[in-house]
């Protein structure tokens, strides 16, 4: 039958199982928006296109599904770039549809025209410009396939206006055939010979550590990862992206490693003789000085992306494959092994790790006068039973959330790790809330970060999304101020925000609920009230101004050389 490009797009979205899209209309996408009006797909109208992409991102991270956005051409498209780069760095499956001027005007400096395909080439997994309505259906299917397969990532599809309103013959039912892209074939099945080497290394190791990352979450491998660690009694650490991949309350948990990791995690990495990295990329925030990283260890690296292996650190046993599949096979191989003596074999190591935990635990001193930001996160963890979905902004707020909230399940910690995008948390919380309307979703924010996408409070109110925003308000761009204090002799250059809005009033101006705590005794009541309010809430916690995140590994140092106070 005859269908327009816009109708084909909506049909394909339905076939891909898309129920919600995040977007913002404009001139060149009017035809698509007309079809959205007639369809039953849910469209969440945001207030800035960056919010649309972050929301789709938060939706994808929470649910494991592909997040979908629709924006218009020109400034609409360029506003998505930060969000796309955020998703690209953290390997999140998104498909972003941007409108484009009609094909005959492309390259002519037309109104609201940008070469968004050119601009996003380095920060998308792949992108397309659809030049003919006949190519639209296949392109959409390919886009979703690429976004969710192998190492996931954002895919952009640029749709010119005449392609959207062009009419072609289209059979919605003949699209069932499998996607074949000859130049794209990710490896899911790991090499069994390599896995056998891993088993042998586990057998012989005296001081092993398991290190999980974003790949564990994306692959759905948390259960297999946890099973492997517990049966072999190997202590576990996880990068920021891997938090929740192993229960944060388990006795084997070391805490997060790296620049702001725990003492015991960093010391364990410095002393271990076997490091099993699964779904990690050995980013510089974790490794510190790469040539002395894990100096005493042989490294096993299991990852679906060959480019990550041997990029930053030398690897003794590389395994290219899907995390879940690889760990499952590894667990099956270990079924034939006897591990009754493993506890004795690891006892000295576990004792050492326990000693590190006791000598330098994460700590802060909460007096009666000023609220400590860590105290807010501690209380939040307590009052939510550790079961909330936590999104964060970037900086000190992000680090304290990672350190003091202990995640027992995957897909509950949503944070911009790779790009470190301030303003990510609030729209991401909105996306996560859409994915799980009945869960408690809290954005841990700083007063700097929250102002970057504060306009999305209107989105939360419009769509009745009861997200909670906990602002750790210290009047500064905290993390930068910390570096200026420690390395620039307290020359606080442009980090003091002398003018700040009254966040509680601002919440009310949007139609949400605004609360404030200025004393430690007010923290718990404010949190309780927010949690029990079925509406979006901003909590303004006025905290100690010059509190620092510790431990800290200064730039260029080995991760065992931490500043502890």
């Amino acid at each position, binding site marked *: 039958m005859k269908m327009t490009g816009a109708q084909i797009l909506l049909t394909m979205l339905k076939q891909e199982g898309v129920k919600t899209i995040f977007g913002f209309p404009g001139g060149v996408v009017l035809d698509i928006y007309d079809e959205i009006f007639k369809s039953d797909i849910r469209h969440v109208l945001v207030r800035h296109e960056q919010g649309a992409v972050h929301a789709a991102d938060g939706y994808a991270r929470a649910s494991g599904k592909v997040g979908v956005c629709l924006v218009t051409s020109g400034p609409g498209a360029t506003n998505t770039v930060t969000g796309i780069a955020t998703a690209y760095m953290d390997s999140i499956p998104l498909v972003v549809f941007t409108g484009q001027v009609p094909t005959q005007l492309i390259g002519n400096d037309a109104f609201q025209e940008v070469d968004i395909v050119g601009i996003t*080439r380095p920060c998308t997994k*792949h992108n397309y*410009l659809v030049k003919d309505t006949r190519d639209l259906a296949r392109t959409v299917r390919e886009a979703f396939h690429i976004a969710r397969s192998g190492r996931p990532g954002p895919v952009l599809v640029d749709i010119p206006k005449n392609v959207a309103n062009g009419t072609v013959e289209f059979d919605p039912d003949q699209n069932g055939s499998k996607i074949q892209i*000859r*130049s794209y074939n990710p490896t899911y099945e790991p090499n069994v010979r390599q896995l056998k080497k891993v088993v042998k290394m586990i057998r012989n190791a005296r001081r092993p550590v398991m290190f999980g990352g974003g790949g564990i979450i994306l692959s759905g491998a948390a259960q297999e990862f946890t099973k492997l660690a517990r049966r072999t009694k190997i202590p576990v650490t996880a990068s920021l992206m891997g938090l929740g991949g192993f229960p944060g309350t388990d006795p084997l948990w070391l805490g997060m490693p790296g620049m702001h990791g725990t003492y015991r995690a960093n010391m364990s990495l410095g002393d271990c003789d076997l490091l099993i990295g699964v779904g990690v990329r050995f980013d510089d925030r974790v490794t510190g000085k790469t040539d002395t990283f894990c100096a005493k260890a042989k490294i096993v690296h299991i990852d679906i992306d060959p480019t990550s292996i*041997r990029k930053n650190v030398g690897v003794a046993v590389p395994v290219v494959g899907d995390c879940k599949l690889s760990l499952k096979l590894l667990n099956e191989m270990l079924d034939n092994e006897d591990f009754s003596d493993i506890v004795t074999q690891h006892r000295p190591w576990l004792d050492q790790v326990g000693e590190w935990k006791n000598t330098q635990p994460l700590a802060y001193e909460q007096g009666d006068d000023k609220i400590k930001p860590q105290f807010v996160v501690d209380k939040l963890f307590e009052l939510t039973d550790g079961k909330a979905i936590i999104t964060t902004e970037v900086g000190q707020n992000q680090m304290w959330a990672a350190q003091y909230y202990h995640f027992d399940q995957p897909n509950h910690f949503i944070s911009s790790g790779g790009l470190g995008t301030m303003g990510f948390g609030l729209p991401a919380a909105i996306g996560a809330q859409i994915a799980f309307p009945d869960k408690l979703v809290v954005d841990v924010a700083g007063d700097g970060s929250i102002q970057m996408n504060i306009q999305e409070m209107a989105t939360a109110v419009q769509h009745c999304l009861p997200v909670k925003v906990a602002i750790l308000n210290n009047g500064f761009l905290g993390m930068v101020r910390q570096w200026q204090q420690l390395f620039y002799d307290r020359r606080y250059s442009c980090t003091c925000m002398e003018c700040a809005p009254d966040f509680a009033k601002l919440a009310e101006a949007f139609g949400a609920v605004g609360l404030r705590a200025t004393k430690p005794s007010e923290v718990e009541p404010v949190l309780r009230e927010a949690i029990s309010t079925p509406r979006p809430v901003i909590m303004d916690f006025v905290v100690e101004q010059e509190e620092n995140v510790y431990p800290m590994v200064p730039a260029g140092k080995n991760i065992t050389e931490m500043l502890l106070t």
Partner: protein
Amino acid sequence: MDDSKRHILTLLVDNEPGVLSRVAGLFSGRGFNIESLCVAPTMDAAVSRITVTTKANPPVIEQIEKQLNKLINVIKVRDLSIEHAVKREMALIRVKASTQTRAEVLRIVDIFRCKVVDVGAEQYTIEVTGDQGKIEALLRLLKPIGIKEIARTGTVALYRDPK
């Protein structure tokens, strides 16, 4: 110690708009260098061949190959510097040819078995095809005479048939 070597990478890619930009962008974005680049369709109209020469040490060349393979439009990557390959480059050289130097230029052209393809009052344009060594040698000899302009293709290469 710098253990960088010159590598000739031959890529088969989808013949689609933007693919060359993706490959070039990968090199520039990650700080890899491109010494020369040559691209044209193959016998399969949907596939093009890109020949890139780059200088890199072993860990970097490993990353370059892996990153190229990761690109959706890249079908295959081979490093021809480690395989037996036929390597050729073509250059058009405009050289000064005054009455005094004209004969010398023609003698050199004859020795190198290349061709004069354009003649002017004061210059000749020479066309030369050969491996990089031959081109470099010719340029060295012509330089004292006076090279006015040069257009080079960069290396193209094909692996030899394994015997």
